């Protein structure tokens, strides 16, 4: 298989370069015709904020992957891609790499589930632009299956791997029905917003936002359909909330020990979760000494993130097993593509002999006998060729012993001098192809 690919990712290049080479949907659609014109007969471009991958079947058998990076640099003027900035893949290696990408084990955050959707989307773009064929379609279908199986059969995508999500995970370990709970997010910056979105996704009953700048609070509240708590009345209202996430850039504590103690009185001791994901901290850590107060800061949430990342890493061998199984299946299918012409030629070789012999006796027997002989010879040829046909198909589909498959195919061709027949057949096919230049497969 002459599939080739290059990958510019977090392992090979700095973030600045990854950002520079990133192609959005429109750019991919513009870039594909350039590839189609000079380099590939078919291909796919996957581009996310952390990686840009280009796979394809080159026109030239002596294709140099550096041409691909040069083409990308040409398309994105001003960027300089050194050979060390990308990995090169060919044949089985390219397929295996694509499967690893789709499964999330090659991602910056192992088990990232977004990549599977991005792989699917990239293939759809190529398909829309008629830049795909049977083999590439099969490769990407299998890649998507690898991704789905990895999620379903392993725990590669489980557990919070960001601090804001870990905060929500802890909240879920305390409260059962989040829809009956009220949450307050203090700080409308990026982290605060992320936490608010996670809480919303988990079905929290009500979210309120408190921020020094009212406009930013309003903007976030609008986005997540929440309320606003005026920043200056924050302390008086603390007791109304079951979950408080604080992520401001304040230099000092904005929620003191006494504030939380007073809030607890108001809550008559009902549990409250305080997530301090600000650096420096917003909430006095002494509050963790209070009964029914669950206080967590960046350090404690980082423990959860690190543990989950390690658990995901531990799942890599299981995902690799899935990749291997799917590669065996894919190459089994791929190998049948080579065997089918041989089987076809062998069968037509025998059929020609049969027809030739029938022709010889056609005038020597009556019509009724001729039909009987015709029927008998067809069945006989069918039975004679049944086992070799099945055996060859099985060897090809199992994909486990390519040497056996090659040996058997060669013996078959040599014994019956099929090469001559195949070249004759290919000649005929070429003539047909020349008549229809677009029909590659």
């Amino acid at each position, binding site marked *: 298989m002459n599939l080739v690919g290059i990958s510019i990712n977090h392992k090979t290049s700095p973030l600045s370069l990854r950002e520079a080479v990133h192609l959005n949907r429109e750019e991919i659609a513009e870039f594909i015709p350039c590839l189609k014109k000079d380099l590939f007969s078919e291909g796919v471009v996957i581009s996310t904020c952390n990686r840009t991958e280009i796979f394809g079947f080159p026109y030239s058998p002596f294709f140099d992957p550096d041409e691909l990076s040069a083409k990308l640099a040409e398309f994105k003027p001003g960027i300089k891609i050194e050979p060390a900035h990308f990995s090169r893949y060919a044949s089985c290696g390219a397929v295996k790499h694509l499967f690893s990408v789709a499964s999330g084990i090659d991602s910056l955050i192992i088990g990232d589930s977004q990549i599977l959707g991005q792989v699917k989307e990239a293939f759809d773009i190529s398909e829309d632009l008629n830049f795909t064929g049977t083999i590439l379609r099969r490769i990407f279908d299998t890649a998507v299956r690898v991704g789905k199986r990895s999620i379903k059969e392993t725990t590669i995508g489980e557990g919070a791997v960001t601090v804001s999500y870990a905060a929500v995970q802890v909240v879920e370990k305390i409260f*059962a029905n989040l829809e009956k709970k009220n949450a307050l997010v203090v700080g409308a910056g990026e982290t605060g917003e992320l936490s608010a979105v996670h809480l919303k996704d988990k079905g929290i009953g009500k979210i309120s936002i408190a921020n020094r700048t009212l406009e930013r609070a309003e903007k976030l509240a609008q986005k997540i359909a929440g309320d606003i708590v005026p920043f200056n009345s924050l302390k008086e209202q603390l007791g109304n909330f079951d979950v408080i996430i604080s992520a401001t850039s304040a230099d000092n504590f904005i929620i003191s020990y006494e504030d939380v103690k007073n809030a607890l009185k108001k809550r008559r001791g009902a549990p409250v979760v305080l997530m301090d994901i600000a650096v420096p901290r917003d909430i006095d850590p002494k509050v963790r000494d209070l009964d029914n107060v669950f206080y967590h800061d960046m350090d404690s949430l980082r423990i959860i993130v690190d543990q989950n990342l390690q658990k995901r890493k531990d799942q890599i061998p299981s995902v690799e097993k899935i990749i291997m199984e799917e590669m065996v299946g894919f190459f089994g299918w791929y190998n049948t593509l080579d065997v089918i012409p041989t089987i076809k030629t062998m069968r037509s070789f025998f059929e020609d002999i049969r027809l030739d012999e029938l022709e010889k006796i056609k005038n020597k027997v009556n019509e009724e006998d001729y039909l009987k002989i015709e029927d008998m010879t067809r069945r006989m040829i069918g039975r004679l060729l049944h086992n070799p046909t099945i055996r060859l198909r099985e060897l090809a589909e199992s994909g486990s012993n390519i040497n056996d498959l090659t040996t058997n195919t060669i013996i078959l061709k040599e014994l019956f001098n099929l090469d001559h027949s195949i070249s004759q057949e290919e000649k005929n096919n070429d003539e047909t192809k020349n008549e229809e230049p677009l029909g590659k497969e």
Partner: protein
Amino acid sequence: MLESINVINFLLPIFYFTVFGVYSYDFYKEKKAVSNIKRLVLFLTLLLHTFYLIIRTMEYNHPPITSKFEIFSIISLSIGFSYFVLELLTDIRGTGAFIILFSFIFQIISSFFIEHTYIVPEVLRNRLLGLHVINALLGYSGITVSAVYGLLYLLLYKNLKSNKFGLIFDRLPNLEILEKLSFYSVVIGFILLTFAMVIGIIWLPSAYPNFSYTDPKLIGTFVVWAIYGFGILNKLLGKLYGKKIILYSIFGFVAAILSLIITNTLAKTFHSFY
């Protein structure tokens, strides 16, 4: 039938240990296949145990309440059964190992020391007494299960407070669920205990015409019943919740155990059958 009783008596601890093993394995590894099998294994064990108690009743012609070790076997079944019902009602399957361990302990002690009890005092052959004992044991099992959930609550609470995010954090249900499980089991226990007390009061005058309402057993049981009744009422009124209700439930359990120890060993009461 005696042969069957002996064989099942030998098999029951093995079955309970298997259930405990399967639940523990699932707690540590969380495998989907095991998660589905474990409930079936528990169900089969409870079925075998029920069959064992039925054939025992038939063979010895009295309910299996005539010795400490028969009682232990019923406690074992009651705890397993209470947990099974809770698991069916809530579909929370991560806590079984902690509960079934008690079933295993009671059953293995029972299986080791249980004897053939053909000859028993006539008073113990009474069916009303049988009903009273079974209700009381199921009631005590309910409050035992509640206390176990209470302890699990405190364990998770401590883990959350001290930033320990290990197996307990990963596998146990959340604090609110544990509180709910503890409360459900205590309510079931309380109802059954109430039945047991009512049946006991109906049966008592016919069996012991000279009994006294100041008997330590009656006072002790009433105190335990009142403690739980007060707790349940306050929980329903929304006055007790979270860690407080859990601590209260554990306090109730300690009171129940102390009451049993005092009335069965130290005090003089009509309730001393063994």
